[in-house]
């Protein structure tokens, strides 16, 4: 147990050398450490889609790493959100005596971030008994460009879980041999775990309705609360 904990600590706390090692061995790959500020401090490694298979293969095959087990694949939906920034701008304003005066004004700027989908892989090494290393991959947006490479050629165990991420989030895994829906039926068109999924209006009978359910129930019965 002690050895396990120690290795856990080592791997978790030292993503920096791991990053450097991957960068040295997979030329051209772009890595980024995504810090986790919570007490678990489970930082993760953001990898780019082009080199994902190469990075994964390296993690699996390197003698000192041997991440031979991908225990979990999951998805995250990051919808686009509004960011408000305060920017200091120098503006020329007409002074009281008619001459232009330069003045520093704070301006609030609002912009929309590009939403994206994220896929998370948890890796362990059965051989060296260490882990987890958390890999992340991001799609370009949430609409058309949702393609990511499948890691099934590296870890066979991601088969059903990538299908699940495809089903519930709509991430298309290129190279997956059998990318079908797994939980929902084939005719279904939505991706129910996305934040903007709207479930069908079957709120006829909600005996203990409250909050969102109450809103939907009232909506269904044509009333506004």
């Amino acid at each position, binding site marked *: 147990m002690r050895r396990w904990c120690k290795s856990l600590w080592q791997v978790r706390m030292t993503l920096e050398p791991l990053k450097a090692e991957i960068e040295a061995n997979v030329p051209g790959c772009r890595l980024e450490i995504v810090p986790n500020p919570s007490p678990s401090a489970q930082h993760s490694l953001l990898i780019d889609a082009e080199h994902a298979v190469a990075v994964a293969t390296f993690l699996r095959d390197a003698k000192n790493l041997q991440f031979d087990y991908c225990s979990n694949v999951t998805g995250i939906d990051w919808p686009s959100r509004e960011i408000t920034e305060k920017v200091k701008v120098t503006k020329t304003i007409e002074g009281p005596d008619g001459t232009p005066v330069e003045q520093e004004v704070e301006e609030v700027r609002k912009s929309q971030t590009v939403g994206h989908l994220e896929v998370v892989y948890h890796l362990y090494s059965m051989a060296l008994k260490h882990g987890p290393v958390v890999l992340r991959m991001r799609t370009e947006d949430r609409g058309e460009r949702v393609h990511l490479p499948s890691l099934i050629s590296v870890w066979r165990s991601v088969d059903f879980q990538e299908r699940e991420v495809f089903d519930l989030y709509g991430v298309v895994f290129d190279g997956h041999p059998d990318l079908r829906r797994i*939980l*929902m*039926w*084939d*005719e*279904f*068109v*939505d991706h*129910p*775990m996305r934040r903007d*999924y709207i*479930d*069908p209006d*079957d709120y*006829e*009978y*909600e*005996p203990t*309705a*409250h909050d969102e*359910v*109450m809103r939907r*129930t*009232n909506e269904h*019965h044509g009333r506004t*609360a």
Partner: protein
Amino acid sequence: MDEALKAELSKQGIFTVTLQELYNWGRKNSIWPLNFGLACCAIEMIATTMARYDLARFGAEVFRPSPRQADLMIVAGTITKKMAPQVVRLYNQMPEPKYVISMGACAISGGPFKQGYNVLKGIDRYIPVDIFIPGCPPRPEALIDGFMALQAKIDAQQLTGSTRPRHLNAAEPSEFIVPEFGAHDLEPPKNTTVWHAPLVQISLAGADDSGAA
């Protein structure tokens, strides 16, 4: 038949019954459930049939693996929308007279998963249910109680007249619509000939600041 005469005859070793009593007595004591479970409630159902609770005492020990040989469907567990058409199809394949016990919160209403994207809000949206057993999951005693309630229901059935059961009324349906997989939900989302939303007064308390219900 006169009750006094009936008692007098029984003293002489002659038992008189109506055909209805005999028919209902025979059916209620030989219910064959369908060997069919959907989720954790099925574990309680299995426990009910085993030695400790022994459903065989009520004449229902033969769980049939085929719907053609069963006359009771115990819907034990969460019905996912993906599974619902198969549940209705199995029900349609059972011969009349047939009964349904909706066991547990999920089968009644969707239970803790009611607002889930793939959970049917109760099997009574598609097929007629005779007995509802609340619980999550219900204990075997609750299933036995529900089973005895079903027996009492069968025993009280009139074979003639306007209240006669469905299987003796040619005008009543024996098969129900099997829903199809649609783009966003099952099609139809409910069978309106079977299910009507119960009338509920939705309290508006908490929805506004007035506090008035």
